[in-house]
C-alpha cells in the first residue's frame, strides 16, 4: 500500500451516494492509512488524545468501514485488517477477561493504540512547527557572491643526493674526453667524390676498379685512403641510381668495378 489510495472505483457509485459518502468520510483519498483515519475520527471525540475512548473510536472506525461497504467503496486491505483488529479489540474490551487467554489485555492494546495516535499527532505538530521555522532561501539568505577558493599551483623543486653526485661526476669527468672534432683535412666527402666521378665516368667504357678513381695523394695514408674509397664507392652507387653507371663485384672482397651505362644496346 502506498500513501495515496487511488484505487477507489468512484465511478461505480451514483453521484448521490458519492456525495453521501463524502459527507461521511470527508475524503477517503486524503487519508494516509488506517492510523490517519483513526486520528481524524478521534478528533470527533473532542477530547485530549490521552483521554480518548478507544472503544468509541473502534465503533466509529467499524461503522466507517460498514458505510464504505454499503457504498461499495473498495477499501485498501490494511483498512480491513485494521477493522478486523479493532473488532477483536472491541470484544476484548467488552467481554470479561478470559484467564485462559494469552497475550496482552484489551486495556494494554487500547493504551498502545492511543499512544500511537498521540505520537502521530505529535509528529504532525512538530512537522508543522519545523516547516514554520525561518527557512534558508525564504527567510534568511546565504552570501550572494560566494568567493571560490582559488587553487594556486606552487612548484617545489627537489633533487636527490644521487642527482647531485651524478651531476658533479658529469662535470668533473667531461674533461677526460677529447671533444669529437671532425678532422676535415683527412676526409674525402661523397660530394667531392661524386663531382670527380661525374667528370670521369663518361670515359669509362670498360669495367674499371673504383680504386683507380681515388684522387691523387689519397692512396697512401690508410685513413685518407679509407675515407676516399668509401666516398668514391658511395658516389658510384649514386651514379648507378641515376642510371649513368653500372657497378659489379665478381665475388666477395673482389675489386668493385664500374663502367659507363650503355644506353642503346644493353650488355
Amino acid at each position, binding site marked *: *500500500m*502506498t*500513501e495515496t489510495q487511488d484505487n477507489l472505483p468512484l465511478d461505480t457509485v451514483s453521484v448521490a451516494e458519492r456525495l453521501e459518502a463524502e459527507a461521511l468520510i470527508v475524503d477517503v483519498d486524503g487519508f*494516509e*492509512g*488506517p*492510523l*490517519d483515519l483513526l486520528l481524524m475520527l478521534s478528533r470527533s471525540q473532542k477530547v485530549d488524545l490521552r483521554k480518548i475512548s478507544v472503544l468509541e473510536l473502534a465503533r466509529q472506525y467499524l461503522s466507517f468501514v460498514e458505510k464504505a461497504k454499503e457504498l461499495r467503496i473498495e477499501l485498501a486491505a*490494511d483498512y480491513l*485488517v*485494521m477493522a478486523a*483488529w479493532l473488532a477483536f479489540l472491541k470484544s476484548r474490551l467488552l467481554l470479561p477477561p478470559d484467564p485462559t487467554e494469552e*497475550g*496482552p489485555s484489551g486495556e*494494554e*492494546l487500547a*493504551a*498502545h*493504540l492511543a*499512544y*500511537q495516535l*498521540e*505520537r*502521530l499527532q*505529535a*509528529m*504532525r*505538530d*512538530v*512537522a508543522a*512547527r*519545523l*516547516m514554520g*521555522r*525561518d*527557512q*534558508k*532561501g*525564504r*527567510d*534568511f*539568505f*546565504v*552570501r*550572494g557572491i*560566494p*568567493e571560490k577558493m582559488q587553487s594556486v599551483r606552487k612548484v617545489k623543486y627537489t633533487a636527490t643526493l644521487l642527482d647531485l653526485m651524478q651531476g658533479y661526476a658529469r662535470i668533473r669527468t667531461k674533461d677526460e674526453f677529447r671533444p669529437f672534432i671532425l678532422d676535415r683535412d683527412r676526409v674525402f666527402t661523397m660530394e667531392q667524390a661524386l663531382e670527380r666521378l661525374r667528370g670521369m665516368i663518361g670515359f669509362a667504357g670498360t669495367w674499371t676498379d673504383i680504386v683507380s678513381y681515388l684522387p691523387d695523394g689519397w692512396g697512401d695514408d690508410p685513413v685518407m685512403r679509407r675515407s676516399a674509397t668509401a666516398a668514391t664507392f658511395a658516389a658510384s652507387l649514386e651514379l648507378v641510381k641515376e642510371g649513368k653507371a653500372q657497378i659489379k663485384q665478381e665475388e666477395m672482397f673482389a675489386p668493385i668495378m664500374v663502367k659507363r651505362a650503355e644506353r642503346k644496346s644493353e650488355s
Partner: protein
Amino acid sequence: MNDDDLSTTESEERQPIENDSLFDAPPMGEQERMVEAILFASAEPQTVKDLNDRMPHGCDAAEALVHLRKRYEGRGVNVVKVGDAWAIRTAPDLGFLMQKETVEVRKLSRAAIETLAIIAYHQPVTRAEIEEIRGVSVSRGTVDQLLEMEWIRFGRRRMTPGRPVTFVVTEEFLDHFGLESARDLPGLQELRAAGLLDNRPPPGAIPTPGEGDVDSAEETSEGQSEMFED
C-alpha cells in the same frame, strides 16, 4: 668556520627565517578578520577545522568565532552555528527585502514533511520505524526526495537482524531550518518528557503496514540517543 664580523651579521639576519617560534600567530583581532573574510566568502558552513586549515599556523578559529559572533549580534547578517560548522546568514527579520534572492523550495508532500519530522525527532530511525509511526508504508519517492534535497542521509546500520539502514538529518537540514543542532528542534524536550520519542513496543499484534516491521520492537531499543547527546 671563522666568525668574522660579516658572518656574525649574517647569522643574525638569518635567524628570523630559521626560528619558527618567532612567528607568532596573528593577533586575535586579525584572526577575527580572517574568520570574517572566510565566512563571508563561503555559502557553505565552515567547520572550525576548515577555518584553522585555511588560516596561518597557530590561529585559534574557535576563539575568533566567539568574538565575531558577538560582533554581528543584532546586525543585518549574523554568524550562526550549523552543527559543527559556522556560517554567515542574513537576519531572518530582513527576509522581506530579499524577494529577488528567494529560492523556490520544492513543495514537499505531507508524507515527505512527516517523514522528515520523524527522522529528525527519532534519528537514527529505520524505515520500519517510520512506517510504524505513520501507520503507512513509506514510498521510495519520499525518501529519495529527502535524500536528494540533502536533508537526510543514511546513518549507521542497526545491529539487529537484517542490519537495517537508518536515516539521520544532515547539516544541510540544520542549515536550512536555522538550527544549531538537532537538539534545538522545536518541542523536542516536551516530546521527550511526554515519552513520545520512546520506542514503545506494541503489546501483541497491532496491525502495522508492511512486513518490514516484524522486528521493529527489538531493533529500536538502541540508538535513539546518539544524535541528541554529545
